[in-house]
């Protein structure tokens, strides 16, 4: 009987694989297989009958319909792209500002932190929806203030519109930035204090220190937060596209096949968005 002697290294590798094995199994069952299956479904017309699922191959029909013919989808994608272009930088910059603010030696720091992290726990679609419906998320009667009419009238609509949008959405946008603040704050607390001291001795102002020391140090976290924000906003339960996908799932006209095709197109859009943003940010870094 040949006894296989496991070297220490091999034995360790096996143990490591054992620890990771739940993930591997889960990945195959709950990620890999569903992805392949949904890819398959997206090329089919799917009918769910009491006896099982019936699929008919339709080629790129679902995709063509989604991109060229479905007015609801195209319109929502355009709106989504516009919102992302505005919201992602706003959310990330805001969370960075808030993290910087509460990282300072201020009075009532604990209280402020507690308030600013509220969005971490209030994240469910229906609750935010309810707040939206009751008008609790925008500054009340914003149109009444002279400042805003002034902005609207005096500026070019191209500039005025995003500004107005920002004011109307401000609370909504802030509610998306809980985890990002946490991540920035954790990063800020890790910045080596001696670098700050050295910079101060050399006569750098707080402003210079921020741009030349803090921000470059935080850059990896900026990218992490951009990715997190894009994923979070894109998959949020109130996002119109994901509501559209769910509605199509159980629609008798379009069904699972079309819904999966829409989901894949959406996924590709999200990936492009991530690629563009991370690309831009890592270019800046150099």
């Amino acid at each position, binding site marked *: 009987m040949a006894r296989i002697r496991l070297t220490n290294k091999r034995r*360790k590798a096996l143990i490591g694989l054992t620890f990771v094995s739940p993930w591997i199994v889960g*990945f195959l069952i709950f990620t890999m297989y569903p992805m392949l299956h949904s890819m398959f479904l997206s090329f089919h017309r799917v009918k769910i009958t009491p006896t099982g699922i019936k699929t008919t191959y339709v080629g790129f029909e679902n995709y063509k319909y989604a991109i060229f013919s479905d007015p609801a989808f195209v319109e929502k994608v355009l709106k989504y792209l516009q919102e992302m272009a505005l919201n992602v930088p706003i959310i990330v910059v805001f969370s960075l500002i808030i993290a910087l603010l509460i990282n300072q030696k201020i009075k009532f720091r604990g209280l402020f932190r*507690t308030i600013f992290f509220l969005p971490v726990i*209030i994240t469910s679609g*229906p609750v935010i929806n309810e707040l939206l419906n009751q008008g609790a998320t925008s500054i009340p009667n914003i149109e009444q203030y002279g400042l805003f009419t002034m902005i609207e009238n005096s500026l070019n609509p191209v500039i005025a519109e995003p500004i107005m949008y920002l004011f109307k959405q401000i609370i909504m946008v*802030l509610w998306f930035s809980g985890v990002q603040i946490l991540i920035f704050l954790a990063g800020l607390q890790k910045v080596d204090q001696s670098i700050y001291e050295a910079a101060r001795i050399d006569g750098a102002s707080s402003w210079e220190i921020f741009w030349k020391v803090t921000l470059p140090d935080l850059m990896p976290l900026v990218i992490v937060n951009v990715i997190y924000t894009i994923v979070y906003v894109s998959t949020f*339960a109130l996002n119109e596209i994901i509501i559209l996908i769910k509605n199509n799932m159980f629609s008798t006209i379009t069904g699972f096949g079309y819904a999966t095709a829409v989901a894949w197109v959406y*996924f590709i859009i999200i990936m492009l968005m991530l690629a563009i943003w991370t690309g831009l940010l890592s270019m800046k870094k150099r």
Partner: protein
Amino acid sequence: MWKNRSINTANKFRKRLFGMGENDGFVFKAVVYLLLIGIGFVYLYPMLFMLVNSFMSLDDLVNSMVKWIPSTLYFENYAKALKVLDYKTTLLQTLLVAGVPALLQTVAAAIIGYGFARFDFPLKKLLFGLMLATFVIPTQITMMPTYLMFKKYELLGSLETFIYPAILGQGLKSALFILIFYQFFKRIPAVLEEAAEIDGAGSLKIFYRIAIPMAVPSIIIVFLFSFVWYWNETYLAGLYFGNELTILPLELQRFADSYNKVYPPGSPGNQLNEAINLAGTMLTIAPLLILYFVLQRWFVEGVDRSGITGE
């Protein structure tokens, strides 16, 4: 010459107002507090709005003189909302739906994160990359086949639809949690484990006797966030649970419909109004708010201890 001087004066002015180094100027401080209070108000405003309005009687709602202070504390809204949400049952179910998967997800993430952090094995880099990539895959891609799969094995409507993915490291935002544990276990010095190994302890024993006790802060954070996220997950819950199980946010979504069932439209004095709606919203987030205020130390301070950002 003139240019130089103006820069000098500008610098002096700036120093006075914005401060230098440790001593921040007065303007700087004032701006910081103004910003803090302003932004803080923006966060608190919806909460206050909700709290105040949920105590308003119909008369107060209609009365334009009453804006922030209800004339009487009107508890009837809460009584109605409690009944409509079927609060006791729904709350227990929500605790179950959020608690069990969160617990299992935490355990799974710790085990998997430990495996990635402490061992070398073939294809590790590829697997780790795939693991991170799962974070950006929207559930909309995978949920339909998963739904069909659950349907085939008759799991729809049961908590198992949340449990199985959680155990296998594919629950809500699992990649993030595995990453947190990975970062944490990477930081533990290997000496401790080596010492235990020489003493003859097996890997499993080292894991739960040495690694786990050290990871308690990470465990608490991961569990809390997982719990909160499962609590708030209405999209998948609505899809997988059907009418068998429910959670508070889902019931809030159906609030208007359920209300009309309990208080049929037309019955006098029982129309649904925004105050009742807000009482329902308040009741939905109250347990989380309580959890947050009791354990806020962990939400607020513990993050840097959990190793979320790595080294």
